[in-house]
């Protein structure tokens, strides 16, 4: 039962959906509803109109081009987890998708909806940041592409404008020589992450030629940790964990930490480097 009544629109095409969004600036898009329906129930979202994409044609495809994979806005997390073609090219994303909540949530929740929900503990946002994904965004007035990092501006907050919706998430296909790994810390299986790390590294002659690390969980928003990436470049793979633990990159995150009563700042500043070191070491151990 929602806390407040709303009108439900179920457009059958993207252009009809965009018209519905243009007509009501406070309308909310609904994809899988796995976050929005609880928000409506709790009264944390009180839109006058909900525009459901459940019967909107053309949004449920995975298009695999030679250099890019486009995941339509209604593709579920479960499909991202299990699709063999996608998994072969975007293994990091598939691994992160398998960590999302329960099968129940993954069966209906979508990749695009997860990114647009901008939960700091999302599993899919750090993976999308490492893979340098972009959202393809449309409104009744036009179309633009926005990087996932630029789109998310804080907890549950995005830079999408009224009238806009994501129609697809686009991933450049990484060279198969990248090793990748995903690590998540939870108290109870199925919970949102207390901390999560997506890692991609390319090793040449025993040293890290390139590294990408994205952290989420106890931060206002998940971020690429550029300082740590720079520290890791050129370092022997065997010295990776020591480099993570010895660096000053945590200073860059200080302003973004989201401590609470159970996860105070001193715990977070002690835990995150160890957690990240383990994530990087695990990725290097995984082989190309």
């Amino acid at each position, binding site marked *: *039962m929602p806390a407040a*009544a709303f009108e439900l629109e179920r457009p059958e095409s993207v252009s009809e959906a965009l018209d519905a969004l243009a007509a009501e600036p406070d309308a909310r898009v*609904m994809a899988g509803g796995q976050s929005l*329906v609880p928000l409506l129930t*709790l009264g944390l979202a009180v839109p006058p109109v909900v525009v459901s994409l459940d019967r909107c044609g053309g949004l449920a495809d995975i298009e695999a081009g030679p250099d890019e994979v486009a995941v339509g806005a209604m593709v579920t997390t479960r499909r991202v987890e299990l699709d063999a073609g996608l998994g072969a090219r975007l293994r990091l994303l598939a691994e992160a998708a398998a960590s999302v909540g329960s099968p129940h949530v993954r069966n209906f929740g979508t990749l695009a909806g997860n990114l647009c929900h901008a939960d700091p503990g999302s599993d899919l946002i750090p993976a999308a940041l490492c893979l340098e994904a972009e959202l393809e965004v449309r409104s009744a007035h036009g179309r633009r592409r926005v990087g996932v990092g630029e789109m998310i501006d804080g907890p549950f907050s995005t830079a999408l404008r009224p009238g806009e919706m994501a129609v697809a998430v686009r991933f450049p296909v990484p060279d198969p020589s990248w090793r990748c790994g995903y690590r998540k810390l939870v108290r109870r299986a*199925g919970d949102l992450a207390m901390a999560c790390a997506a890692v991609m590294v390319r090793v040449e002659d025993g040293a890290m030629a390139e590294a990408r690390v994205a952290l989420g969980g106890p931060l206002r928003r998940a971020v690429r940790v550029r300082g740590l990436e720079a520290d890791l470049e050129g370092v022997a793979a065997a010295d990776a964990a020591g480099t993570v633990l010895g660096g000053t990159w945590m200073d860059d995150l200080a302003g973004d930490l989201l401590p609470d009563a159970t996860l105070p700042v001193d715990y977070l500043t002690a835990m995150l480097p160890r957690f990240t070191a383990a994530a990087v070491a695990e990725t290097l151990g995984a082989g190309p």
Partner: protein
Amino acid sequence: MTAVSANGGNRPAASISVTVSVNGRRRVIDCSPGDTLLEALRSPLGLTGTKSGCEIGYCGACTVLVDGAAAHSCCLLAATMDGREVTTIEGIGTAEGLDPVQAAFLETGAVQCGYCTPGFVVSVKALLAENPAPSEAEIRRYLTGNICRCSGFAAIVRAVAAVTR
């Protein structure tokens, strides 16, 4: 027209009619935009085997199958369910002929207060349809969407393993 519901929220009069297959029977559900599938099953349809717990997707007491896939019925709007096939606990086994999953829960003592049991049984049906011989780790992983507040998880996992033997 709006009527005030028991929880104080505004419940608009049913304005949408959707046709859903529920346990193999074609049912017409009259609902308002905000009614969840859980509410539609329990109240207009009277299928109270599907339990209401947290109402925000965490506890799994409200698990049903939608087109064969496990779903938290509290997180789906009834108005978006037209043309779907929904299976609730009432569609699994009968009092005379229990489903093997229900029989295993009984034999293994996997039921304490019983409130979570319908949700667990429905989730296990989805698990076994996908993976007829799951390992213990696979059973535990699949059941992350269901919580037993009596914390009888060990017996529940044993019950699932017993079905597959």
